């Protein structure tokens, strides 16, 4: 039997301690629920699939200082050299590096008249080669890759091809295939979609159009390169790349060797920091709450030693004493959980307004309250068991 009514009466008649604990629980629930939600949001962002074999793709920059060099021709030679290195799966040059925080973005028109037709959503604009898909490890789900002879040397070409991400394809043509569709750049340039990849993220992790990407068949002759090889070969591959490219032309500098995984880590550094800080806050709040609960139970046991002895003398079994303290604290917890949950929703709405965070899901306050019940049980059970061991003979002692 839980004897809720007399416990509630008793709580209502000596309020000060329970009220302080209640306030602590309300604030803890409100903060923990929102912090957990933000942590979960950030984790979900970090765990998004980029579509790229992040750990296998090694990127670097190559700066040519030879004024006489034909950069486009040299770029093609360099790509050939890279592809020929041991353990290299594929390699390509690129105008931008995925998840790096910097790159190109654009929109295109859906029709030839720039004034009257709609634009595509914003997308990351990769200029790549027939090796880009294999180098990044993308999954082509519709259409085909570029053929080598289809590569253009510059964006000036009026007729170009594109492979786009499936998210972008669905955003533009929700009910039909993107293959063969034409996008327009100004009045003259037409870009025909020839393939769709399952996923390809752009460069800006906080952008709402991160999943929108377009690869165009423009071998731009950029200074950025991507080389794909198993990550265990990256250290020796770095040396091999330097050696091979400098052997081809020593008047240049190679710099910034980083895997896409490392670029991604760097981009998500702020998110990781926030997760760490919020996690510490949640743990500390739960710890403080559990200490508060334990403290109050221990104080109550000391204050009520004779009362507990009397209860035992009057027939309370040990389990009755344990359940008394558990129920008493569950009641405080329940009240704190309900009020804290409401405060959490209010706080969530304010955060949504001020910091453009998504709306707090109701499950978070509920899970927080459930977690709080577990914390309460853990925090109260041991002292309550100690209380249950108070001898019934205490009732006859003059304490």
């Amino acid at each position, binding site marked *: 039997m839980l004897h809720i009514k007399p416990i509630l*009466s*008793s709580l209502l008649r000596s309020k000060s301690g329970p009220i302080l604990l209640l306030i602590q629980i309300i604030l803890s629930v409100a903060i923990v629920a929102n912090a957990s939600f933000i942590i979960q949001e950030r984790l979900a962002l970090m765990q998004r699939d980029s579509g790229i074999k992040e750990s296998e793709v090694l990127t670097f920059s190559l700066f040519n200082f030879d004024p006489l060099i034909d950069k486009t021709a040299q770029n093609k030679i360099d790509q050939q050299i890279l592809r020929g290195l041991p353990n290299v799966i594929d390699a390509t040059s690129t105008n931008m590096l995925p998840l790096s925080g910097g790159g190109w973005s654009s929109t295109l028109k859906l029709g030839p008249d720039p004034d009257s037709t709609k634009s595509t959503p914003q997308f990351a604009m990769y200029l790549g080669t027939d090796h880009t898909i294999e180098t990044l490890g993308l999954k082509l789900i519709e259409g085909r890759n570029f053929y080598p002879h289809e590569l253009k040397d510059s964006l000036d070409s009026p007729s170009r091809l594109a492979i786009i991400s499936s998210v972008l394809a669905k955003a533009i043509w929700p009910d039909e295939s993107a293959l063969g569709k034409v996008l327009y750049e100004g009045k003259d340039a037409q870009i025909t979609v020839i393939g769709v990849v399952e996923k390809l993220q752009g460069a800006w992790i906080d952008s709402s159009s991160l999943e929108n990407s377009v690869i165009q068949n423009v071998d731009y002759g950029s200074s950025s390169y991507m080389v794909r090889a198993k990550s265990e070969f990256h250290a020796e591959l770095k040396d091999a790349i330097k050696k091979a490219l400098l052997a081809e032309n020593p008047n240049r500098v190679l710099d910034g060797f980083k895997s896409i995984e490392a670029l991604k880590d760097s981009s998500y550094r702020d998110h990781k920091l926030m997760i760490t800080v919020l996690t510490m806050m949640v743990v500390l709040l739960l710890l403080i709450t559990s200490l508060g609960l334990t403290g109050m139970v221990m104080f109550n046991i000391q204050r009520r030693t*004779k009362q507990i002895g009397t*209860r035992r*003398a*009057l*027939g309370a*079994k*040990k389990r009755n004493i344990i359940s008394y303290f558990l129920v008493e604290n569950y009641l405080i917890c329940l009240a704190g959980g309900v009020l804290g949950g409401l405060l959490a929703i209010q706080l969530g709405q304010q955060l949504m307004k001020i910091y453009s965070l998504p709306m707090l899901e109701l499950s978070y306050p509920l899970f927080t309250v459930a977690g709080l019940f577990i914390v309460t049980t853990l925090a109260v059970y041991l002292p309550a068991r100690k209380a249950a061991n108070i001898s*019934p003979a205490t009732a006859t002692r003059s304490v």
Partner: protein
Amino acid sequence: MLSMKNVSKVFKTDLVETHALRDFNLEVNEGEFVAVTGPSGSGKTTFLNIAGLLEGFTHGDYFLDGINVSNLSDNKSATIRNEKIGFIFQGFNLIPDLNLAENIEVPLRYRGFNAKERQRRVQEALEQVGLASRLKHLPTQLSGGQQQRVAIARALAGEPRFLLADEPTGNLDSLMARQVMELLENINQAGTTIIMVTHDPELARRAQRNIQIVDGQVCDFTMYHQGYRHVSDINAATDIDKLVANADR
């Protein structure tokens, strides 16, 4: 009703063994009103605790209402305390945060009675002690005598086989002490066995039988007074008065 045979209680520390009770023998019959007296440290409280199953003992046998309660589990002891014994404490031991009805309900809840039965018993018990109108009052709103009457009501509500009273008038002035004593006498006359530990020779004289505990052993003086059911040996009163006076000196 209560039978203790060669009961001993030894408290042990690393250095000392203290014999609180030694070869303690006592028979209390159903319907008796027994006063237990003795000097401080003689073992009265230990006897009361053992009699009320509040603590165990080292040797001997103890039968309560025909049940050998010598080696009961904690749960079983709690059940017997709850069902068969009513406790009246010197300091009343009411729970300050609960009103009178809730205080009286405490043992009834442990017994598993439903709300209706609890309410009936609370009402009856409070009527018996003349406090039926104070159901919702808190203990602090009552005088000491009234609080002890509530404690008696709490003890009676479970309809116990016997009452154990530990200095029931110890914290009361003489007028209130007399009222409480009269209440206990009425309860006893209604058939409930009472064992009362007291320092007060006047109260002890009003019991049917006096047990004097000295050094953890019983000095038994049967004392039947006029006005009680079996009046036979009035001279014993003189002896018990002397003993009690010596003990209090």
